[in-house]
């Protein structure tokens, strides 16, 4: 991880951003090919924010996100194979096919999900930060949420608790201008969202979420404060979602094509690409990076296709902890709805 001082090397960041973009494009294709189902939320256009914040997050720090999380998972180091297999609902997915697109996680990397109820992840992240403090661990939690989530009661209660109890958590508001079809101005009486941190005497600031270096600088600074001074903060990253709210949404009922094109004119990937050219990286080298991303994603698709479907006999896998089977033993007689067959703690199968 880069120290706060030294400027981050751009090339690996570009590699991450391209990987994110290519992955989302492929996910949309696979969704339309009916290999992915449910809700599928893409983050194309938001790569500087996803990659920048994940670059600033240290190995021992914790991560919580909403449901628009493919990019965060990849940038956190979850393999494209594990993510794609999850989208395909396969056994080798990071949630073994149980969670899908909205519920990615990787506990080994401190990623505690992938949540689908708007703002529901904020109290959870607050609790993770409380646990870090109780365990005397010096890390911090980064909690991602969208601009639409700041109008939920859970936002208010979580920020008040985090500030009142001096918890090491940074609330990352990914402001992509819309919550589904509702613009920030139509949803929030204070459209400068970061200013709401003041209601908790908490630091709040806004950053250009399409400038990966600015995102890294701000995130590192706030995470350092959180770790060292146990000061929570709000970081609002201004960015833009290129695709619809989910793959099912064309994304044009509430905004114009021009608006989208205007944002794509200063695309975060292009910006880094230009910077790298300035640093003397050749077009060929950059194209090679792009091709490499294509190959990694193609490999992920092959892996996902080969990963077995979950065993239907494992329908209730993970629902309850080992030993619970015995507790449920006497619920079965008289059951008329197959509950008797549910097993919680058997393995996942070969």
């Amino acid at each position, binding site marked *: 991880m880069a120290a706060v001082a030294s400027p981050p090397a751009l090339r690996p960041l570009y590699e991450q951003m391209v990987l994110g973009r290519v992955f989302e494009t492929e996910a949309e294709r696979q969704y339309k090919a009916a290999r992915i189902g449910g809700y599928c939320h893409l983050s194309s256009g938001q790569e500087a924010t996803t990659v920048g914040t994940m670059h600033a997050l240290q190995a021992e720090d914790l991560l919580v996100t909403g449901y628009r999380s493919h990019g965060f998972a990849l940038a956190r180091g979850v393999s494209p194979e594990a993510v794609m297999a999850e989208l395909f609902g396969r056994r080798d997915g990071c*949630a073994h096919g*149980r969670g899908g697109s909205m519920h990615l996680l990787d506990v080994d990397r401190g990623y505690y999900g992938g949540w689908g109820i708007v703002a529901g992840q904020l109290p959870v992240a607050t609790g993770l930060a409380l646990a870090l403090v109780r365990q005397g661990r010096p890390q911090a939690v980064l909690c991602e949420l969208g601009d*639409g989530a700041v109008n939920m*009661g859970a936002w208010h209660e979580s920020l008040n608790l985090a500030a009142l109890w001096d918890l090491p958590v940074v609330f990352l508001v990914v402001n992509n201008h819309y919550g589904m079809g*509702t613009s920030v101005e139509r949803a929030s009486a204070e459209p400068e969202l970061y200013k709401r941190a003041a209601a908790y005497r908490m630091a709040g600031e806004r950053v250009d979420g399409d400038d990966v270096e600015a995102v890294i600088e701000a995130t590192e600074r706030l995470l350092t404060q959180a770790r060292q001074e146990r000061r929570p903060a709000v970081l609002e990253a201004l960015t833009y979602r290129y695709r619809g709210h989910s793959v099912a949404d064309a994304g044009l009922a509430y905004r114009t094509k021009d608006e989208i094109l205007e944002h794509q004119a200063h695309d975060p990937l292009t910006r880094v690409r230009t910077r790298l050219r300035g640093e003397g990286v050749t077009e060929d080298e950059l194209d090679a990076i792009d091709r490499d991303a294509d190959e990694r994603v193609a490999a992920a698709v092959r892996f996902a296709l080969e990963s077995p479907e979950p065993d239907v006999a494992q329908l209730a896998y993970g629902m309850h902890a080992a030993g619970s089977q015995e507790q449920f033993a006497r619920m079965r007689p008289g059951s008329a709805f197959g509950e008797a067959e549910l097993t919680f703690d058997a393995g996942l199968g070969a």
Partner: protein
Amino acid sequence: MSAVATPGAVTGTKVMTYREALRLALQEELARDERVFVMGEEVGVFEGAYKVTAGLLGEFGADRVRDTPISEEGFVGAGVGAAMLGERPVVEIMTLNFLLVAMDQVINHAAKIGAMFGGEVRCPLVIRTPNGAGNQLTAQHSQSFDGWFAGTPGLKVVAPATPADAKGLLKAAIRDDDPVLVLENLPIYKEKGEVPLDPGFVVPIGRAAVAREGSDVTLVAHSFATVRALRAAAELAEQHGISAEVVDLRSLRPLDVETVAASVAKTNHAVCVEEGWPSYGVSAELAARIQHACFDDLDAPVERVGMAEVPLPYAKGLELAAMPGEGRIIGAVLRSLGVAR
């Protein structure tokens, strides 16, 4: 309130989807009564997450079709307050799963007003929202809490299974002077059926319907489970020569026990079907009522079919295995009739 057409009313019917029938009901009631207004996330500009309100913003304007921030507790409560002052708010909750953040306003506020304030003020609020699973929406987005609301004194709960009932019951709910929860369902939106065009057409709350006549067994269901039950009944007739009667509850509170009991008294066998989890669910109340009302009529225990008791998994194969499919309904019927498969 009745299903009788008003004098000089439009007659005839039209085949449309459940979704279109709901839209027609909203359109008619918005046009009929100034006090009616629609409120919820994405009901306006976006035309509804599931397009039920498509076109209404254009026709009635932003004051009658009000987009809200993501703040269910806030705007459900705003509906409660507006209703107390005589408005007729129709609040859309994108899916039932999200009503959990507004439970306090529904259970501790809307449902309490009439009795707690000694009848001094009423709350004619309508909340409409789809429940259900089947689209790989996973654990947080595939639930049916129907019984929780149906078990709350002070509320009324309807759950139409056909486009005609969707129109008639939503209109009845909007005209009712008490808080009414209208339970819709995601897979059912695309179901088609004949719908009366008469704007005076309403379906009375608290009346079940015999959706299919039969003599060997009674299938009791509501909402999308009724669609499943009808499919199972057809297959039972063809494949097994079993004549199943299907009782479509239509209302969960008040619950029309009379119609259910009359059917079971005739068939002597009952299978209760629901989309949700059966334990402590709607089918529990049905079984309890049936065994009490039809104790001497029953030739076999009341059977129950519902969602497997797990948080809904994402993988298609797992989700399918969890759902109360026709196969499981037929299995329960054969069990009830003591027929080996």
